[in-house]
């Protein structure tokens, strides 16, 4: 590639030629972090130890809604080994908006808003001493009425959770717990419904679910009186930790250095802070001694980000031939006791994203309830929206005697479709996914008694976001990449493959490090399915910058024009016979001599990454329902999804399977169970039932590749779409098996059996 071509690609940005053969992209080498992870050498959040470290324990409210009358910490402060105690009023005053909400959730100040809300914390010389001291803190509460369910929270007479939080768009007369209202759409809705042969509407509900990452939140925080601090933490985004902790504690962001550990799952739940600022506040009070804070599983389930619970109305018009003429949704979502935590807007945007509809209308209500402050969870809002819309599409398809895949192909969004949420799609791969699903051998399997098949489509936008990447050449010609997005899904391997491809050097000559906040400019977390897309794109551009420098140095050495030097197969070459006769100089040779040719060679790129490509998918699930117990067994599960380009196909397949597995849990068993007092009854994996390995068949995957022209290798991002179709696909399969339509998740054996018995 000649230098001017490199330049052109850097500048044009959005129209990469991805239609070529690759040497490394698309292969399946071992992941660079694999050996450490399978041998236990990898360091996760709780594995970090620092000399002189203290241990923290947190006191959590046992009430869903209560005013804090008083907190007496004197006995805890006097206990053996205790070095610091903090409560909400120790944190700085005067915060507003989202920063205030983060601070309130970190440590309650006036009120506790949910069972498990932190009210005080202790740092002591041992974890046991801290745990014992917490029990000595005396809190007097004035109990307030509470509300858990989203519909109940909007109803007249519901307890008011917060005053004065209602946004300006909320229709007059609505309950103060309704804090935001969104509406949008396009086309003539009435004409659309008039044109239909069949118009149906139904209401659907989903329960809150937790991301269920294996690794509980853990950190070590250190903060001195000078306001300078460090944190080692399990997170999806070290700069978000820095920004949020700095805001909650009134620090200067640059004075806080945050180093991410390896991460045992996040799924969006580790893109914010929960207790991290507590460890820093305790450290400051304890004279700057580092404080380790590790949550228990019970704390994770009681007090960290679940997703929203929802109540959703859907109305769709369809002609006898399956043509969809109009769609309308009204979504009510609660994301805990703080505004803007429920992903209402994103759910609305996703609702009809898979369809080419002449008329769509969306309404959404953001509602407060006495539940934990919701966090992002894999394709926030999209799985619930898909449950409602794809369930109703299936009902109508069955009623009209049509094939569910054909109806989706007939109405499917494609290049040029004006999306339900506004923009016009560029190249997308929904129809390719549906066609591949139709052709898959799973669909030829005959179903037996009590068995059923369900189909659903799903969608996620994907995300670019603020990204900064550096690479540098070693003196042996190997390359180090500094990336800011923690590796939750194999992104080190994917980035290394793209760097190897770009430079033309072997995969194992590239090492990708996930670095701390001082080493790069601001990076958004590994969220929005962006790590391989955005970090990969920036890494490629950083390499191109270094290639440019290497070409310039060769041109200087050879005494020819820069334009007459090209980079290929890991070496500089004269661009053609006219450029002169020079032996190619390999990257190894360049590395060995760079001290003499002008100094270290590195490349750097920062961007708010554009060129994002949407990812669509189609799932087909076969289930068997025990008619006597209502228990659903997943017999076969097929995920077909457009990856744009699978850089490392194994990790793409892993993302597809993981999304399906989490969706299966959400569909069948996972829910937050509350008692009459609003206390969570199942904050333990025994009773918060994520699927176990033996619950799942091998999940079949098909990778569709409709390259994204906005990425040098065509990447779209694959992490999130996979969780969007399972909820409706399984509901549709259960309906096929039993003749009963379940519209309220989870579809537990008790609910399915009741539906079977009641006809």
């Amino acid at each position, binding site marked *: 590639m000649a230098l001017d071509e490199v330049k052109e690609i850097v500048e044009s940005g959005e129209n990469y030629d991805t239609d070529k053969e690759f040497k490394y992209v698309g292969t399946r080498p071992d992941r660079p972090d694999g050996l450490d992870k399978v041998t236990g050498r990898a360091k996760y959040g709780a594995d970090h130890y620092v000399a002189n470290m203290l241990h923290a324990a947190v006191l959590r409210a046992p009430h869903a809604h209560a005013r804090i009358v008083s907190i007496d910490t004197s006995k805890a402060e006097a206990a053996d080994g205790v070095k610091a105690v903090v409560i909400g009023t120790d944190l700085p005053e005067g915060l507003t908006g989202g920063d205030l909400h983060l601070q309130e959730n970190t440590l309650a100040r006036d009120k506790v808003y949910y069972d498990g809300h932190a009210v005080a914390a202790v740092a002591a010389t041992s974890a046991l001493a801290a*745990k014992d001291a917490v029990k000595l803190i005396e809190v007097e509460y004035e109990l307030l009425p509470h509300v858990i369910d989203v519909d109940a929270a909007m109803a007249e007479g519901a307890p008011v959770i917060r005053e004065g939080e209602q946004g300006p768009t909320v229709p007059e007369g609505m309950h103060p717990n309704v804090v935001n209202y969104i509406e949008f759409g396009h086309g003539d809705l009435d004409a659309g419904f008039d044109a239909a042969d069949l118009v149906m509407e139904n209401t659907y509900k989903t329960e809150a679910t937790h991301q269920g990452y294996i690794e509980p939140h853990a950190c070590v925080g250190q903060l001195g009186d000078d306001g300078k601090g460090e944190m080692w933490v399990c997170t999806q985004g070290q700069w978000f930790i820095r920004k949020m902790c700095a805001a909650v504690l009134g620090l200067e962001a640059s004075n806080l250095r945050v180093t991410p550990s390896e991460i045992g799952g996040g799924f969006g739940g580790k893109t914010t802070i929960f207790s991290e600022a507590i460890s820093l506040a305790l450290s400051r009070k304890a004279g700057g001694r580092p404080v380790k804070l590790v949550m228990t599983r019970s704390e994770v389930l009681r007090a960290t980000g679940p997703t929203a619970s929802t109540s959703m109305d859907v109305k769709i018009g369809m002609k006898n031939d399956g043509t969809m003429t109009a769609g309308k949704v009204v979504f009510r979502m609660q994301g805990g006791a703080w505004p803007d935590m429920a992903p209402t807007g994103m759910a609305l945007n996703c609702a009809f994203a898979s369809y080419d509809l002449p008329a769509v209308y969306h309404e959404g209500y953001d509602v407060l309830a006495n539940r934990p402050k919701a966090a992002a969870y894999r394709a926030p809002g999209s799985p619930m929206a898909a449950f409602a819309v794809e369930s109703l599409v299936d009902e109508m398809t069955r009623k009209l005697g049509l094939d569910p895949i054909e109806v989706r192909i007939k109405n499917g969004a494609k290049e040029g479709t004006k999306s339900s949420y506004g923009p016009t799609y560029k190249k997308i791969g929904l129809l390719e996914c549906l066609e591949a699903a139709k052709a898959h051998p799973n669909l030829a399997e005959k179903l037996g008694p009590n068995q059923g098949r369900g189909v659903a489509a799903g969608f996620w936008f994907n995300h670019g976001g603020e990204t900064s990447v550096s690479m540098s050449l070693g003196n042996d010609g190997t390359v180090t990449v500094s990336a800011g997005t923690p590796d939750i899904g194999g992104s080190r391997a994917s980035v290394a493959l793209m760097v190897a491809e770009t430079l033309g050097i072997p995969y194992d000559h590239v090492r990708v490090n996930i670095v701390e906040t001082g080493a790069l400019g601001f990076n958004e977390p590994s969220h929005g399915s962006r790590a391989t897309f955005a970090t990969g794109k920036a890494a490629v551009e950083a390499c191109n910058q270094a290639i440019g420098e290497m070409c310039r140095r060769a041109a200087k050495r050879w005494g020819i024009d820069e334009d007459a030097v090209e980079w290929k197969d890991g070496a500089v070459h004269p661009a053609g016979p006219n450029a002169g006769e020079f032996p190619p100089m390999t990257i190894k040779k360049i590395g060995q001599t760079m001290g003499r040719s002008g100094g270290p060679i590195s490349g750097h790129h920062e961007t708010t990454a554009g060129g994002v490509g949407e990812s669509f998918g189609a799932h087909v699930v076969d289930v068997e329902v025990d008619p*006597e117990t209502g*228990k659903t067994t997943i017999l076969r599960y097929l995920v077909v999804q457009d990856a744009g380009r699978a850089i490392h196909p194994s990790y793409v397949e892993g993302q597809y399977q993981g999304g399906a597995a989490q969706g299966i849990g959400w569909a069948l068993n996972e829910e937050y169970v509350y008692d009459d007092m609003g206390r969570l*009854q199942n904050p333990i994996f*025994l009773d918060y039932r994520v699927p176990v390995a033996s619950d799942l068949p091998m999940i079949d995957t098909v990778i569709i590749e409709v390259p994204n022209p906005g990425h040098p290798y065509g990447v779209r991002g694959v992490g999130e779409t996979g969780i969007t179709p399972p909820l409706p696909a399984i509901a549709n399969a259960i309906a096929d098996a039993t003749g009963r339509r379940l519209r309220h998740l989870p579809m537990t054996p008790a609910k399915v059996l009741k539906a079977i018995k009641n006809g």
Partner: protein
Amino acid sequence: MKYHTPASFADAAAIAASASGVTRFLAGGTDVLVQMRSDIVMPDDLIDIKHIDGVKDITQNADGSWTLGVAVAGAEMSEHPTLGKDWPGLVEATDLIGSTQVQGRATLVGNLCNGSPAADSVPAQVAAGVTMTVTGPNGDRVAAVEDLPAGPGRLNLEKGEVISAVHIPARGDNAGDAYLRFIPRTEMDIAVVGCGISLRLDGDTITEARVSLGAVAPTVLLVEDCAKAIIGTTLDDAALDALAKAAEAACNPIDDKRGTIEFRTDVAGVLARRAAKIAYARAKGE
């Protein structure tokens, strides 16, 4: 907390009898240690009975009956060459408790003494007619397993009493047992309903039966009416219907996070039918 390692059950009973605070016996520890770590209980006296002679022994007696030490782990029962041939239902029920790791420690006696009405091995023990030797300050007594649970987390044991041996009856001829439980997942879960059945045949006709239900009442139940419903029958459809009805009638469950009253009652009947068919087939040697 004081940690004791008595050399005999008499000593263990004496320590427990003279203790003034919270006392726990420790064998496998799969309940006690977990409860300590989750702040549910912190004993003042923790009495480790694993150091007493014979607590890891599995012995078949001359009359065909079995004596098990109180610290025999589930995995040791599952891997025993002949115990599971006599009592497959009991061994399978024990094997359902916890994970592979837990199976290396968990014991029948611990499962009973934890006092959960949902304990998997207990309905199987009751169906099998298992009895326990209870050692107390005043000597030994023998108690049937069904008489030991008093309610969730409570047992009919006096202060200072400790279970010191497990007795499983001789299996004899033409007999079989089975245990089934319902869980929403496939493993690593707590029974929403459990049912243990042991029966004996003369030809095709059931002559003896014991039927037990778990997780449908404050304690595991031995349900006489279920046994009556199938004794004297060849387990035909009428007998299975009567069995299911009797099982449903015996249920006195609660609504909780794990299941509803309606669901537990329905599924008790379903499991009774299914377990009876397995036990019957085993008795026939099928």
